[in-house]
């Protein structure tokens, strides 16, 4: 399946595997197996995990330091749970790679990045209709957003605040020059 981030297509370095023996390089294992893999010691492998999207992040956080990548599924583009999971993982300190995997569409790319995802692994069927150009173009549609505390596009509230501060500073310096 293709892999992309905000700068374009990426080379996939991870392979999905049931356990350490199944692949030589970086692997993504199912959530059910991750504890066993960690217990065995991941060695030189970079380790990722496929989580279900109905999991509580409280189950993931104790292992988060040991996970190089967390892949969050979107079984349907209409299922927005993954956005909240990513936002929670980022807010609670997860610094590894966050991947959105599944049936996302280009119109959700900016949302995914804003919620803390680094990359998207879209379904082949979707990517066949929505090539990389459309994914990148989707990021240019909306310049500013209204929400504070999300990544990506600059937020309007802080820009208004900065404009107010600049105006106030200008006013002060004017007053000073009068004196």
């Amino acid at each position: 399946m293709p892999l992309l981030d905000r700068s374009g297509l990426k080379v996939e370095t991870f392979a999905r595997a049931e356990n350490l023996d199944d692949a030589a390089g970086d692997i993504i294992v199912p959530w059910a197996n991750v504890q066993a893999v960690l217990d065995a010691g991941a060695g030189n492998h970079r380790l990722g995990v496929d989580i279900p999207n109905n999991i509580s992040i409280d189950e993931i956080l104790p292992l988060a330091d040991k996970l190089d990548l967390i892949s969050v599924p979107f079984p349907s583009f209409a299922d927005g749970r993954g956005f909240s999971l990513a936002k929670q993982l980022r807010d609670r300190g997860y610094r590894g790679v966050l991947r959105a995997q599944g049936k996302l569409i280009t119109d959700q790319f900016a949302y995914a990045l804003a919620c803390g995802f680094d990359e998207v692994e879209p379904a082949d069927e979707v990517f066949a209709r929505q090539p990389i150009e459309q994914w990148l173009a989707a990021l240019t549609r909306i310049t500013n957003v209204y929400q504070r505390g999300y990544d990506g596009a600059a937020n309007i509230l802080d820009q208004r605040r900065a404009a107010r501060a600049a105006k106030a500073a200008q006013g002060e310096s004017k007053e000073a020059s009068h004196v």
Partner: protein
Amino acid sequence: MYRYDEFDERFVRERVAQFRDQVARRLDGSLSDDEFKPLRLKNGVYLQLHAYMLRIAVPYGTLASRQLRQLALIADRYDRGYGHFTTRQNMQFNWPKLRDVPDILGLLADVEMHCIQTSGNCIRNVTADHFAGVAADELEDPRPTAELIRQWSSLHPEFSYLPRKFKIAVTGAEHDRAAVKVHDIGLRILKHPQTGEIGYEVIVGGGLGRTPLIGKVIREFLPKDELLAYLEAAMRVYNLEGRRDNKYKARVKILVHEIGVEEFRKRVEEEYAKLNGPSINADPAEVERIAAYFAPPTYDKLPGDSKAYVAQRAANTAFAQWADASVFKHRVPGYAALTISLKTIGEAPGDITSAQMRAVADLAEKYSFDELRVTHMQNVVLPHVKQSDLFAIWNALREAGLAEANVGLVTDIIACPGLDYCALATARSIPIAQAIAKRFQDQQRQRDIGPLGIKISGCINACGHHHVGNIGILGLEKNGVENYQITLGGDATENAAIGDRLGPGIDADEVPDAIERLVEVYLSQRLKDEPFIDTVRRVGVAPFKDAFLAKDSSKTQEAEHAAA
């Protein structure tokens, strides 16, 4: 009222361009029909029975004259010369072509309007008390809060693919005119009983539809500046835990009902405790910036009762009667808030022609500081008119065919579009409303009956809010025939209540008689000046039920007579 700054302007323009691109990508096959559907819905474009329908946001029901004139232009150019105000203070056009929609959105953007999130599984257009800034019982104007939420919820990266739609309403008054207890989240502005600080009571899990439920308080007092972070926590719990296996169980009310309000509150508070509030909330200067747009207009200093108005009332009974029904007391002496009825007998509730839109826009410009409100009762309000201008306004409204003296009365009926337009409907609503209005059109009788809210929905989704009608009517389909269930005792105010069903459903042509029998019970049971809903509360449903069912007994008697 609120005016766009450079950021709002650019945002809405970019959203129009984005939708234009989405339409193009649907046409070239990049987007499947399934994928395009929520994208068009989030821009207010529905596929109805006969055509596309476009739902335009009127945030918290506030409109300027130039905006209403633009709606009139769109009605003439792209529709059939009229529009329809909805129970969520929005405007719908029933006949636009899909290819015209991007151009219509451009015209809307020209007057700082849009269709963003008037449908779809996202946070919908925020509604508020239509007498905001007018009512004497108001603690604080709810519209700055509603505007803050409008901005915050627009294209929200995390909450645009919710389990189901999400409706927020705000009131700042003692008397609830925004139906906050039947919304997914209702906010009531209040003063902290000890400190006097302004904040919100947060109500969650109200709603109508298949499973009508009254909302429950999850936060007695939320400090005003913590609003957005708290909403983020509540929305996150819903987004993660709301049911996605069954569309009819996906609203937050079902989650609250299934896990219990205590557990829901606990989960929201746990999430809230982990958030970094100051990084999410709007700073007070931003809240002040928005609030400044809603500062009261510059009223003239007038005596409490206009002498001219008193004289005109005395000289003209029809005018006095119209004013009695239509005028709401303004907090400023000498002024009035005027409700214009869009319930002319024989017309579809909430419909307004382009000529009427222009007439109303002219009146707002001339007499009401250029401002209008749309009510969830599907009427229009001129919020700040001088009492001394009411007579001139009445004459202008008569010319425009908008002087029906029935606001709040039995013929001021709320109805969804029903089977005449809607793809979901199981029965017609508009003809039922028209038949009841005709039956009760006698002015004297309407006034004698007094305040009585009838609400009609053409299917179980309850867009006509029938559950909270003093008399509610739900149109269903039974063996290929339209069939109407009647409920009694519903209330959308601070005394929110879901109506009780009176008995088996009845045929369309039996509805006016059934309403008549209920009204007769009321008239025979009421105490002096007691409104319909109070009588129902005092005497209970039983006598009404008996009268409702009397239809069958009279039939049975006839049958017995025939047999004898």
